[in-house]
């Protein structure tokens, strides 16, 4: 679960990390190849390759304008593919109209039909398919019960809260038993507590429907982390990275990804070559490389996409830092795997955030943002301190 796919002109094609073992043997529910989309003269999606397997939750993550919603709308058939192909359930539906695609869609503002009762909303897709009345009613009951809205079938959408409307929208999308469920920012209109509740709800739903493929679009990284088997990070119409949430968090393949997840310090470093301490691979198979910042030498974890010489960026999460024991000397490499990196700097400011203390520490060449557990003895601004962190928590990335 640690391999990470990245896509940039400089590297090889992306390595997809399937969520669960053996899923590659089943054909993908959604296979997008080389998809390009333009609005007028503006290219909004470029060479997108994406596969979604049965039972997999893929989250398309990106800022607004990254193309994530356009990708979803292209899969749904509302946006015309300029190049490439979209294969759904084994059929090439690149040019098919939306109603011939058999996908369940849920959007941010729910888009329930205001003139229909809850049960008519859920029945809509089945009526469009001319299912028998008995089948339709059975499906309506089943899917409304599944989302816990069985008691509301006679209500009109305007009589429901946002969360309830979203559940009905889910039931309506699921009732057509789609090849895949497409969720376009489904939780963005909900307030924070309700959103957390709906995330749990979606997870439970997925446990009860283990075979369905889900594409979930969001700009919220915590939502993505909580729900995704695989995250696909988009930026300016391209896939920047994809992999499991943990892989992207622990070993981001590039600075953009690092910046997107958690509070990453991206420190400008120089890779040390040759004599001093050569790059090496330890017994466990991890690769390490010595780097230098503000005259201090550190050990960094490397990935296949890490640079091997010159300038680079060292990615260290704010939560990786601890105050070094006053007597502790800088790790000199003599004590093997247990060694710690140590950085010295001057405290610029301290903010209490409740669970943690946030320190800004000036290194001269860069400023570190560190979040220390609340109970640590907190240094004062102006003091010179030593922060330590494990080399495993420092990943070497290419400069942008």
């Amino acid at each position, binding site marked *: 679960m640690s391999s990470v796919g990245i896509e940039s002109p400089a590297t090889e094609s992306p390595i997809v990390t399937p969520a669960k073992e053996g899923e590659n043997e089943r054909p993908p529910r959604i296979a997008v190849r080389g998809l390009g989309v333009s609005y007028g003269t503006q290219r909004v999606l470029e060479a997108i390759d994406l596969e979604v397997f049965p039972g997999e939750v893929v989250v398309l993550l990106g800022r607004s304008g990254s193309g994530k919603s356009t990708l979803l709308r292209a899969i749904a058939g509302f946006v015309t593919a300029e190049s490439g192909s979209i294969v759904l359930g084994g059929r090439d539906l690149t040019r098919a109209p939306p109603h011939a695609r*058999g996908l*369940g869609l849920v*959007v941010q*503002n729910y888009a329930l039909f205001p003139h229909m009762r809850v049960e008519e909303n859920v029945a809509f897709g089945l009526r469009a398919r001319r299912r028998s009345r008995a089948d339709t009613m059975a499906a309506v009951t089943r899917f409304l019960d599944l989302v816990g809205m069985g008691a509301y079938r006679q209500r009109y959408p305007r009589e429901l809260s946002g969360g309830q409307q979203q559940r009905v929208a889910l039931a309506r999308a699921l009732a057509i038993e789609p090849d895949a469920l497409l969720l376009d920012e489904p939780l963005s209109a909900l307030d924070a507590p309700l959103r957390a509740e709906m995330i749990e709800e979606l997870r439970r739903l997925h446990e009860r429907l283990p075979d369905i493929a889900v594409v979930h679009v969001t700009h919220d990284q915590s939502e993505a982390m909580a729900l995704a088997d695989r995250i696909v990070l988009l930026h300016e119409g391209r896939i920047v990275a994809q992999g499991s949430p943990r892989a992207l968090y622990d070993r981001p393949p590039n600075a953009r990804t690092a910046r997107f997840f958690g509070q990453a310090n991206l420190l400008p470093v120089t890779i040390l070559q040759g004599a001093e301490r050569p790059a090496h691979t330890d017994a466990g198979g991890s690769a390490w490389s010595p780097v230098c910042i503000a005259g201090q030498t550190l050990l960094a974890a490397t990935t296949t996409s890490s640079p091997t010489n010159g300038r680079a960026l060292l990615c260290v999460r704010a939560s990786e830092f601890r105050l070094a024991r006053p007597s502790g000397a800088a790790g000199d490499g003599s004590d093997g795997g247990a060694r710690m990196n140590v950085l010295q700097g001057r405290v610029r400011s301290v903010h209490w955030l409740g669970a943690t203390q946030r320190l800004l520490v000036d290194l001269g060449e860069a400023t570190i943002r560190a979040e220390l557990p609340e109970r640590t003895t907190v240094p004062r601004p102006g003091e010179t301190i030593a922060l330590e962190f494990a080399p495993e928590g420092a990943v070497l990335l290419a400069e942008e």
Partner: protein
Amino acid sequence: MNGLYLTDRARRLWATLALTLCTVVFGLPLLVLLLASFAGHWDALWPSSPTWANLRGVLASAEERAALWHSVATAGAATVCALVLGAWGALAGRRLGRRTRICVDTLFVLPITVPSVTVGLALLVTFSRPPLLWNGTVSLVVLTHVALVASYAYANAKAGLERLPAHLEEMAASLGGSPWFVLRKVTLALLMPHLLAGAALGFALSMGELGATIMLYPPGWATAPVEIFSLSDRGSVFSAAALSLALLAATATALVALERWAASRRH
């Protein structure tokens, strides 16, 4: 709401003045018309000697009964055509470019910005030469009314479409609805209140249309307004007033029936 700061006294004074003016200008003539339609004599300031004779006379006259029927039939047919045309135009307008759309807007609005007599004359001269020999037909009357009321149907349909909640039609398509299914079950269903409002307005206007109709109505298809005009022209003011009342009643009945039908569909 109270943008103007007036004392209560001043407010009352102005309100009384406005109310009086409106009553004299709008209310009084209708009241007099009502009185006239039941009047036996009108020698003094007010019509006098109330009687049912005028109304009975109108309803007994085949000519005037026919005029009422012609109005209802013309207005009904014109309203249906205008509704179809207006809704179609508004729906198609969404897919058109900005310029074409402005052209469509203008086309629909043109007939009501031009004096109705002019519209009548224009249609008359256009359709009175071969191969467009269409004058002297009922269809031309209906066509004229369509041209005059389609604007309201179009404007209402357009306003309704603009208020259509975002994504509903996309959602319906994505759930498997064919374009025709989506149009019927979602677009038109949600547009219905707006279409009905446009229909009611168009029907009422068509029932009262005189300017264009008088230019081109064929013999044997005088509408109620035409008949009212000729009655009063001949000096039969009481009969004209009684026929006006009947026209008013017919219009109101039709609109109430439309509203009832709409309400029954909603539940």
